[in-house]
C-alpha cells in the first residue's frame, strides 16, 4: 500500500513536471505544478506511514503510554502541513503574476515573454 501511494506520488510529480515542460500556457503550467505539489505531499506522507498503525492523535484507545507502539510517524505529517501551505502561497503568487503578465501582453503563452534573454 505504501509503495502504491509512494509510486503514485512520484508519478504525479513526473506528470506535473511533464505538464509544466510541455504546456506553454501559464495557467496550465501552474496547474501542473500544483499536481506535482500534491505528488510530493503523497510521497512524504507515505514515508511517514507505518503499516498497521493509527493516526498520531492520543485518545482513549491510543494512550500516551502506548503511543510509541501504536501511532505512525507524526513528523512527516507536520512537514506536509507546512508544505501544503507554502505550496498554496506560491501558487497564489504565480497566479497573481499570471494575471499581471496577461494584462501586459494579452497572452498567456510563456514563449511570448522573452524580452529578457541572453
Amino acid at each position: 500500500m505504501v509503495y502504491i501511494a509512494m509510486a503514485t506520488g512520484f508519478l504525479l510529480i513526473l506528470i506535473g513536471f511533464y505538464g509544466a515542460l510541455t504546456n506553454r500556457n501559464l495557467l496550465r503550467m501552474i496547474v501542473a505544478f500544483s499536481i506535482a505539489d500534491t505528488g510530493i505531499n503523497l510521497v512524504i506522507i507515505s514515508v511517514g506511514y507505518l503499516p498497521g498503525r493509527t493516526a498520531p492523535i492520543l485518545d482513549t484507545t491510543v494512550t500516551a503510554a502506548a503511543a510509541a507502539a501504536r501511532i505512525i510517524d507524526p513528523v512527516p505529517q507536520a512537514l506536509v502541513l507546512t508544505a501544503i501551505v507554502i505550496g498554496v502561497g506560491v501558487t497564489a503568487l504565480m497566479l497573481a503574476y499570471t494575471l499581471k503578465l496577461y494584462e501586459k501582453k494579452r497572452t498567456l503563452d510563456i514563449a511570448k515573454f522573452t524580452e529578457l534573454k541572453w
Partner: protein
Amino acid sequence: MVSALYILIAALGAAFFLGFLKDGMRATAYALTLAALVFMNFISAGWVWVFVVDGAAPVEILTSGFPPPFAINLRMGLTEAALTLLVNLSGLLSALYLKDVLLALGRRSMAVLLIAVMALCGIILTRDIFNLFVFFELAAIATAGLILLSEDKRALSAGFKYMIVAQAISVLLLIGIIFSYHATGTLNIDGMAEASTELKTGASIAFFLMFIAVVAELKPFPANGWALDIYESAHPAFSAIFSAASGAAFLFAADKLLHIGGAAWFPLATGIGIVTFVAANLLALPQTNDRRLLGYSSIAQTGLVLAVLGQQDILGDRYLFVAGGLLFAHSIAKAGLYWLSGLIAGRELPDWAALRSRPLLIFAFVTFIAMLSGLPPFPGFYAKWELARLLAGEGRIALLALILFGALLEAGYLFRWFGYIIKREQPAQRVACTPHKLAPVIAAVVAGWALGYLWGDLSGHANLLLAVPLLFALSFLLLEWLPAWIKNTLAIAGMVAFFVLTYAEYDPLRLIFSVIILIGGPIIFLASYHEHGRRIGFYPAAMLMYAGLTLLIRANDSFGFFAAWEMLTVGSYFLILRGKHSEPHALSYIIFSLGGAFMILAGFALAAQGAPQFDLASLSLLTQPLAPWVFILLALGFMTKTAAIGLHIWLPGAHGEAETDVSPMVSGILLKAGLFGLIVLLMTMGKQQLYGIELTHVLLWIGALSALLGNLMAIFEEDAKRLLAYSSIGQMGYAVFGLALMNHLGWLMALMFVINHYIYKSMLFLSAGGVAKRTGTRDMYRMGGLITLMPLSFIATLIGIIAVSGVPPLSGFGGRWIFYNAILSSDVRLPMVILFFAGPIAFLYLFRLIHTIFLGQLKDEHRKLKEAPFWIILPQMIFVVLLLVFAVAPGLALRRVDTYLNQFFPEGGLNWAGTTISSNYGYWNPVAIMITVCVIFGSLFAWLLFVNRKAQKVKQFNIVFAGERPYRPETTHFAWNFFAPYRKALGFMVQPFVTRFWSGLTDLLHAAADLSRRLYNGNGQTYAFHFIAFVVVVYFLWTGV
C-alpha cells in the same frame, strides 16, 4: 549579547506591525523598517565583536524549550555572525537606497524587504534541514516580490520564470529531505551529519537531490537563465541583496549540506562550482547590458566559492579565510556595483562614462573591480594566494588552472568596462546622486578597504596596507585636490627620500634597479611639471606603480613579490589608460599582465609545496620534476612584462598611446620589472631541463627572436612612439638573451641594457612626446625638418639613437662589447645568428626616427613651432649628461655588480684595470675611445667651421632645384613607407601572426560565448528544461564517475 533569535523576531515583528499603520503613514513605516534593520545589524555586529574580540565559542540557540533534534535549533558562531552581518548590512543599505521606491509602494514592500532579510538570516542560522527549506521558500517568495521594486516592466516575467524554477527546486529538495529523514531519523543537520553513513557514501540519491536543489539556488551553469533575467531587470538595490546577501546565505546552506554529506560529495561541489565559474565568465564576455553583466559575474563568483566549498578537505583551517575572503570581496563589490548602476541612467556599458564627472565614484568603481579581480590589498587577493598554494600543494593543478582562467576572463570584461568609463563619450544624462543613494556606495567602499586591512592582518603575511610605499601611493588619493605641481614635488621628494633612507639595504644588483626606480622615476617626473591643473588620477596611479616596483625589489619572499607585482601591474594599467586612444591597448596590457601574474601565482604556488610563502632564495632548492614547471610558469609570467615575442602585442599600443611623461615611465622603468623577475628566477633556479630540453636555451631563442622581430616591426612603423615601443621589444629581447646565456658577461650585458635602456628610451620617448605635443601628430611622415625649430629635442634624439645603435663612443657600445664577449664563452651558436641579424636592423628604424622627424623638409604648418616645453626638455638634457657619463665610466654602475655576480658565476668576470676594461677575450677603453673620437671629430669640425666661417644659411634646394622649392613638401619629404624595399624583401617576417593568433583566440572565445548564451532564450519553460537537464546530467556524470 542579544540572542540571534531577535534578528528574526525583530524583522517579523516589524513586518507584522507595519499592518497597523495606515497607508498614509509611510514615513513612519519606513522609519520602523530602518529601525528594525538597524537593530538586526546591531545584533549581528555585536556577535561578530564577541567572537572576534572575546574569542567566544559558538552559541546554540534552542527554540520552544526542547533540545534538538526534537525542536528546531539555531547556531550563532563566527561564520554565522559575519554572514548575518553581511546580509543585514546589505539589507539596511539597500533599504536606504530604496527610500523613494519603498515610500512609493508602501508598507507591503517594506514588509517584504524585512522578511527577505530575515529569511536569509534564517537560512544562515538554522540547524534544521526542514526549517532551512522553509526559509528557502521564504527567501524565494520574497525574491519574487522584491523583483517588483523595479521600474522595469520586464521584471514581472523574470519573477515568473524564477518561480517556475523555484517550484521545481523545492520539489526535489523536499524529496531529498524526506528520504534523508527516513535514512537518519532526524531533521537536525548535525544529527544527520552524525547519523548519515548512508548519505555520506556519495551514492545517496536522497542527499543528491537535497544538494542539487540547494546548489540550483546558487545559479549553476547552465540552469541559471532565470537569475540573469532577474539581475537584468530587477531594481539594482535588490540585485545588490540578491547577489551579495542571497548568494552568501545559499552558499552557507550548501556548506551545511556538505557538512551532512561529508567529503564524498566535495568533488561534486567543486565540479559544479568551477564549471559555473568559467562558463559564466565566458558568457559574460559579449554582454553589453551592465546589470546582466554583473549578474554573470555574480554567478561566476558564487560558483567559485562553491568550488572552494568543495575544497575544504585540503583548505583545513584556512577554509574560512579563503572562502570568506572570496565571498566578502565578491559580495561587497557586487553590492557596490549594483548600487552604482542605479546612479547611471543608461543600461549599456559605455553609458557608465557618466561616472567621469565624479572622481569619487570612479574610485569606488575601481575599488570594486579590484576586489572582484582579486587584486591587492583586498581580501580576494589573500584568498586567491592561499587557495592557489593549497591547491598546488595538493596537486590539484587542473582546478587551479581553471580558476585562474576564469578569473582572467572576469578581469578582462571588468577592465574593459573600466576602459569604457574612462574613455567613452560621456552620455548627456548625468549621474543622479542623492545622499541616500550615495551612502551605500561609500559604505561599500569603506567596507572593502576595511576588509582588506582585516584580511591582511589575518593572512599571516605582511599586511600590505601597512607597507610604506603603498601607503604613500594611497595618500595621493587624499591629495587629489592639490594642483599637479605640488603633488609632483611631493612624489619626487617622497621617492628620493625613500631611496636615501633605504639605499644601504640593497645588494649591488638591486641597487641598480632601485636607482632606476627611485631616482630615475623622479627624473621622469620632472617632465610632469609641464602639466597644469590637478591631473586627477595620475598621481595615485603612478605612485601605485612605483610603490609596486619598490616593493618588488625589496621583496624577499614569494608573497611580497607577487603582491608587489600585482600592484605595479594595476598602477601601470591606470597610467597607460590615461592616453588618448589607449583604451584597447590598456585592455590588452592588463589582460596579458594579469595572465602573466596568474602564471607567476601558479608558479609560486607550485614551488611553495603547500607552505604559506617562501624565501625567494629557496627557489633554488626545488628539484625535478617540479622545478622545470615552476621555471616555465615564472619565466612566462615575467616575459609578459618584458614583452617577449608572442606575448608582446600589448606593448606597442600601450607605450605608444600613453601620455608624454607616461611612456618613459612604462617603457624605461616598468619593463625592468620583468627583467628583475627573470634575474631573480635565473639567479635562484639556474638551468632547468624539461624532457631533455635546456630551458635557458629556449629563453635564448625567445630573446633572440624578440630582438629580431621587435626591430623588424619597428622599421615599418609610421608612428614615432610605437616605433620606440617596438624597439623596446627588441631591446628587452637582448636583455633576456643576455640573462639566458647564464654566464657572467651575459648577465652584465643584461644589466647594461637595463641601465642603457632606461636612459635612452626615456629620453627618446620624451623627445618624441615633446615633438608630438607640438606637431599634434605622432606620424613621422607628417613631420620633417624640425631640427632648427626643436634643436634640443634633436640633440637628445641624436645622442639617443647613437647610444641605442651601439655605435662607439656612447654607452650602447659597451652593451654590444659585453655581448660579444659573453657569447664567446657560451656554447650556443644558432640564436646568436638571429641576434647578429637584429643588430644592424636597429639602424634602420633609428635613422628613420631622426631623419623623418628632424631632417628632410619642414611642413608648412609647422613653420611656427616652438621647442618642446622646458619641463620636457630638462629631463632629456639630464639623460644626455647621464649617457655621456655612463659611456665614459660604465664602471660607476657596473663594477660593483660585476664583483657581486662573482658569487653566481665565479668565472668570466671583467678586469677593471685603470680605464681599460678587459675580459678573457678582448678589451675596451671607453675613455680612450671617447677622447680619440672627440679629438678627431672636434678637429675636423673646427676646421670646417673655420674654412666656411662666412657661410650663410640658405634654404633647402638652393642648389638642386636652383632655389625653387617644389610646391608641396609632402611630395618630396621622403618619409612614408620609408623602407619599402625592405618590406618587399623581408616583410613576410612581420606578418602579424601573433596578433592574429591572439585576436583569433579572443574572437573565438567571444563567438563561443555569443553562441552559447543563446541557450538563455528568455523562455521560462526552457529554463525549467535547463534545470531538469542540469540535474539529470550532473547525476549521470556524478554516478558515472
